[in-house]
């Protein structure tokens, strides 16, 4: 599932991911555009048992959130 949280500030990106995690999906691609969202989304995902890979793309961050 692709989640584009660019343009949103905290806690919206975390809330987007929280809602998405109510679905049966086990892997999410997410875009955020600030460090606070990067850190918060990473914390939320890890707290819920997911792994996170993050890459910087220009001013944005691309996250892959998945179960091991």
């Amino acid at each position, binding site marked *: 599932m692709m989640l584009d949280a660019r343009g949103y500030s*905290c*806690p919206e990106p975390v809330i987007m991911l*929280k809602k998405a995690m109510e679905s049966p999906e086990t892997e999410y691609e997410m875009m955020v555009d*600030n460090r606070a969202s990067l*850190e*918060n989304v*990473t*914390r939320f995902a890890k707290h819920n048992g997911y792994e996170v890979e993050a890459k910087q793309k220009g001013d944005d961050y691309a996250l892959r959130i998945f179960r091991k």
Partner: protein
Amino acid sequence: MLEGIPTRYDERLIVGYDTSDDASVYVLNEELALVQTVDFFPPIVDDPFLFGQIAAANALSDVYAMGGEAKLAMNVMCINSQMGQEVVRAILQGGYDKAYEAGVLITGGHTIEDKEPKYGLSVTGFVHPRKLLRNSSAKEGDVLLLTKPLGVGILMTAARGDLVDEALLRTLYSEMAQLNKTARDMMVRYDVHGCTDVTGFGLLGHALEMARGSGLTLHLESEHIPYHAEACDMAEMGFVPAGAYRNRAYTQDDVVIREGTRQGLMDILYDPQTSGGLLIAVSEDVAPQLAAELQQVISCAEIIGYVTRREEKALIVE
């Protein structure tokens, strides 16, 4: 920000823009100085009356943090066309309610149209020039007191994800709406040297200003710092306001935090507070008595640390 802009010098302006203090102070005569401040912000709660109360308590706090007595205020307000008359009135009613409680006269104000509503007060108060409490006048050997628990910013962020229960929210609301006047009225009877209120820069940001301004090191004892335990969990789950990360970036080079401190607690120390408590630097010999007296009249007053000569870092969290 103001570099290159011509400003006038006046020796009566004893606290101005340059010392990052809570309010400006202008000496009128040997016994009286004028304290001036303004603060306003967008709604942080849905209830307009409560928003008005919190915004007013927050604006008045800057005068109390200088050891002053708030006396006159003016409404500063932004409204949009979607807001009903009753909502605008409820916000003002909240502001007037706190002003009344504080013994402050609201003498007028100004309202403009803006997409995002905002409310606050411009406040005028008075202080005896020799009883003025700067954020930069803590003394070696002082003890530090904090008068409201931390974690409000994190919990209000988590509340937007529906993760905070009603009872805790009510506690947070009443803490944010609580005037720092009670604490101020009590502390000025003691040998207090320095004071600031803990707001947007978080405990560590405001403590750093006190440490640097005083040329000393502030030691904070983490087991004595009052905070909402729920905020620790919420921070670790990712509900940290962007301001806390900014505060960390701004502060961390001059701070040592004891190894093994929980991540959530570190976030709480950087958490921006809305209408937070007073951070008071007071003589060690009277600190326990001041703390005990404060605890009789407000729900939180904890001794959280002490002040030493300047060490390698300005702040040490033990």
